[in-house]
């Protein structure tokens, strides 16, 4: 085996595929060309980046879920017309125009994927993590959801019904996780702080707070 083969075989140290270093220069050159031609406004690019880095993220989805857990009328509206119910909280827009909420129960677990590209509810959960966009997740979520969940440390009972949602159109899916036991006294904001992005994709459960005193 040559050194090259050796390096190649072991080049699996992170899901984030490192791009060739020259890509930074290529992108900078492209941006400068587009600015020179009047095709893009650099301030608009800054505003877009700032929106996804600081404003739009999984806290949006967590608010929706916490409201659904604490307000049964809201939950009914969410399950019937998620786009409209989410808009009640001032959330929605780009890549969240058509939402469907799917609910986990003691018998049913939902998992969201996009096998064909990386469709994801940006306005509700922010931009997707690298693993969601990666070939391993996209390829196996539909054929081996139990194996995939096991890789996330989630072992479901054998008789749980797993529903996998392959986002093949412009409908975006939000998993409504089960509210963990022992959180009856928590308010909406405290509940929201427990709800993770992964739970709203369906690769994790929501766990109660670690310290019992906080209940």
């Amino acid at each position, binding site marked *: 085996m040559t050194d090259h083969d050796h390096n190649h075989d072991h080049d699996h140290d992170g899901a984030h595929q490192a791009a060739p270093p020259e890509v930074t220069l290529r992108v900078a050159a492209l941006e400068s060309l587009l600015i020179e031609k009047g095709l893009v406004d650099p301030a608009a690019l800054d*505003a877009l980046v700032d929106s996804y880095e600081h404003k739009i993220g999984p806290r949006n989805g967590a608010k929706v879920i916490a409201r659904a857990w604490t307000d049964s009328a809201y939950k009914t509206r969410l399950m019937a017309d998620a786009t409209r119910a989410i808009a009640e909280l001032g959330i929605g827009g780009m890549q969240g125009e058509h939402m469907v909420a799917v609910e986990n129960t003691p018998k049913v677990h939902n998992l969201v994927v996009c*096998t064909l590209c990386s469709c994801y509810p940006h306005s509700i959960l922010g931009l997707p993590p690298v693993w969601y966009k990666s070939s391993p997740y996209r390829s196996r979520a539909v*054929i081996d959801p139990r194996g995939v969940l096991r*890789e996330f440390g989630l072992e479901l009972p054998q008789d*749980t019904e797993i529903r996998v949602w392959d986002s093949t159109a*412009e409908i975006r899916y939000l998993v409504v996780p089960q509210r963990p036991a022992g959180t009856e006294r928590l308010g909406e904001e405290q509940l929201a702080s427990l709800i993770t992005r992964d739970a709203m994709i369906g690769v994790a459960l929501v766990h109660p707070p670690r310290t019992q005193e906080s209940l």
Partner: protein
Amino acid sequence: MNSVHDMGGMHGLGPIQPEQNEPVFHERWEARVFAMVRAMGSWRKWNIDASRHQRELIPGADYLRMSYFEKWLAGLIELMIKKGLITRAELESGHAAAGSAKLTPALTADKVPLMLAKGSPANRDSNTTPRFQAEQRVRTRNINPEGHTRLPRYARAKNGTIDRIHGVFVFPDTNAHFQGEKPQHLYSVRFTARELWGEQAAAQDTVYLDLWDDYLDPA
């Protein structure tokens, strides 16, 4: 098209590698690519289906090797050249061709909040009656177009059940090729995991896909 992007059901693509405290963008160039794709979309020279198809056209070996935002960059460049927004010579020189007019950007910073809040709904007003009703049995067509489709290989020529009717939506197979939106009903179709994968799948598991009229026949 039957390319590697249609990877549902494949094995051997490696372990899933979640990253703790993952940043929204790992490097600044990723953020700039993402923003340029959104900003250039505002020129309305193409549509989301054409963007997806352009990334599918990346040769398979490259597709698997490239990171997500490298694919976005490659797709954006090809679309801009195809639509005459930039030329290959300009891309190589890094400068606008001599004498070319300076345009006014389609998306300015002040318009970003509204663009993000409005999005681009893909449903269309229509009075047509859906061909299928909830709980009706359907069979997906066995189609293998060289162009864009959102019917994955793993769900072709399979029996399923209409779970819900989403309404009338733009049809990607034509829209991606600028052949019109051909709006038609979109359905959530439920398949048993065993119909798709055989006896190895758990009997109670299901997979749901969003599929258009043109992908479906009565079972």
